[in-house]
């Protein structure tokens, strides 16, 4: 077990070293990234430990305690159904992260093979795939996703499918570019000369070398995905009530905007902080890799 661990650390080390001391640069030059990283770590910790941290059951309705102010039992007060806002926010972090990871995963599952195939094969296959990608890029993605969810049926599963199926295209294109670039390098020629199979070259040599930028790209994307999930839920096409989700909380509280604005402010702040944290982290990683 220990050996596996040191192996992993060595590998990570090599990864980072091969990008010219990326860690070093991040730590010394970019305070914002460190801040973003800490926030992201915190949010992930909250999401994982939601069931432990949350003071109350996020779904438990307490009609005698509706629209209460902050107190020791309900840290941030209660909503219009007497549910604990703090607990719902904490569980909301978990929901947002799970949904966005699902979408991201599905997007990568679609875009990585397509991008790799396009970049590595080149020629007619590449031209064909690129034209398909062009079509997807020319569509207004959010509207398309709305249309797909509308056609299927509102719900988390369909929202994930819809968002992944319209958003994979730019990633496939970037991955294709990186694959083409890596393909030109001598070690790919050397691998070919040693009679490596195409699969070996694609996965062992190309994918491994472009994995770090892909990870960065993904980190950068989580912020906007979380925002999109909240939007979908807000208009009722994503997660359905009573799921403790930030978008739903926003939408539930819009009737009380005049009298109880904090009901909208809390989830709003949660969304802003999360999106900002992921963007800071992703942006910093991107700069570090691009230098």
């Amino acid at each position, binding site marked *: 077990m220990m050996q596996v661990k040191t192996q992993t650390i*060595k*590998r990570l080390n*090599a*990864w980072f*070293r*091969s990008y010219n001391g990326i860690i070093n640069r991040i730590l010394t030059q970019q305070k914002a990234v460190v801040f973003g990283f800490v926030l992201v770590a915190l949010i992930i910790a909250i999401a994982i430990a939601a069931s432990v941290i949350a003071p109350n059951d996020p779904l438990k309705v307490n009609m005698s305690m509706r629209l209460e102010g902050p107190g020791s039992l309900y840290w941030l007060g209660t909503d219009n159904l007497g549910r604990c806002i703090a607990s719902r926010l904490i569980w909301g972090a978990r929901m947002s992260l799970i949904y966005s990871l699902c979408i991201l995963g599905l997007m990568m599952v679609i875009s990585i093979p397509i991008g790799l195939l396009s970049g590595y094969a*080149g*020629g007619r296959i590449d031209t064909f795939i690129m034209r398909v990608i062009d079509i997807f890029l020319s569509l207004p993605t959010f509207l398309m996703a709305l249309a797909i969810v509308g056609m299927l049926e509102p719900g988390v599963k369909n929202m994930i499918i819809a968002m992944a199926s319209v958003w994979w295209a730019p990633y496939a294109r970037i991955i294709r570019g990186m694959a083409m670039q890596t393909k030109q*390098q*001598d*070690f790919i*020629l*050397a*691998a*070919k*000369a*040693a*009679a*490596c199979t195409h699969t*070996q070259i694609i996965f*062992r*040599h190309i994918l*491994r*070398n472009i994995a770090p930028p892909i990870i960065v790209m993904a980190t950068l994307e989580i912020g906007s995905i979380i925002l999109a999930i909240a939007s979908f839920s807000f208009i009722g096409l994503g997660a359905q009530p009573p799921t403790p989700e930030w978008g739903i909380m926003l939408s539930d509280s819009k009737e009380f905007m005049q009298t109880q604005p904090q009901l909208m402010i809390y989830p709003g702040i949660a969304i802003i902080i999360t999106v900002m944290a992921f963007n800071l982290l992703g942006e910093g990683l991107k700069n570090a890799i691009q230098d």
Partner: protein
Amino acid sequence: MQYKTDRRVQSENVILDIRNLSLDYIMPGQNIHAVVDLNLVARMGKITALIGESGSGKSTVALAIMGIQNRNAVISSGEIYLAGTDILSMPKKDLRSYISNHAGIIFQDPVDSLNPLLTVGEQLMETILMHEKITKKQACAIAFNQLLAVSLPQPEELMKKYPFMLSGGMCQRVTIAIASVFHPLLLIADEPTTALDVTVQAQILHQLDLMRKRDGTAILLITHDLGVVAEIADYVYIMKDGHIVESGTVDDIFCDPQHIHTRQLLAGML
């Protein structure tokens, strides 16, 4: 064997025999004749140098011998006999394994020729395991010996290192080790010393020299460094704009150059 073969191998120790090879790069709107009617022979235990300026087509020849030329490079005519078999007449599926069993190649930039994310050991063992159905332990032993054979110290620790931890010269030795895992009859060295400094150059050349003496490997040395050629080569081919303009033993070429281009090259060296 159903492929076109040639007996000359056994009789004259000819490992590589290129006959009338022509290769064009197909570009939109035009075709570039990169190699025109090229004839070249490399013999067992000898170093054959292919000299030319950048863009003369010498690396294209190397890639064509290995069967890894660019997609837009089309061989329009000729034969490449590698160990007695015309590789151009072979079906694609047999081609790669045949070539990789008989020939190895090393490139100009040793650091770039190794995957930065795999350890030296992993890369060596990958090649070994690809060719032979043996256990990891046996492959490890072969890799170990292979590193010793290219005079790399402490192979055990080296196997766990990543390419960026090694110097250029060590990396080039590792690529030689990988290219020669199965004692290929032919080793193509495509400007193996250009990216290295002079003392390391000498060591690498010594390594190549050792290989041809010890294993009888035929070495095709592609370079534009005439100093290197004068030092270790046996036969020399001078290439210009895709043509072989002059060829002969190293003494012939250096003492009595015939073609004006050869004279220019030699004058440039002095």
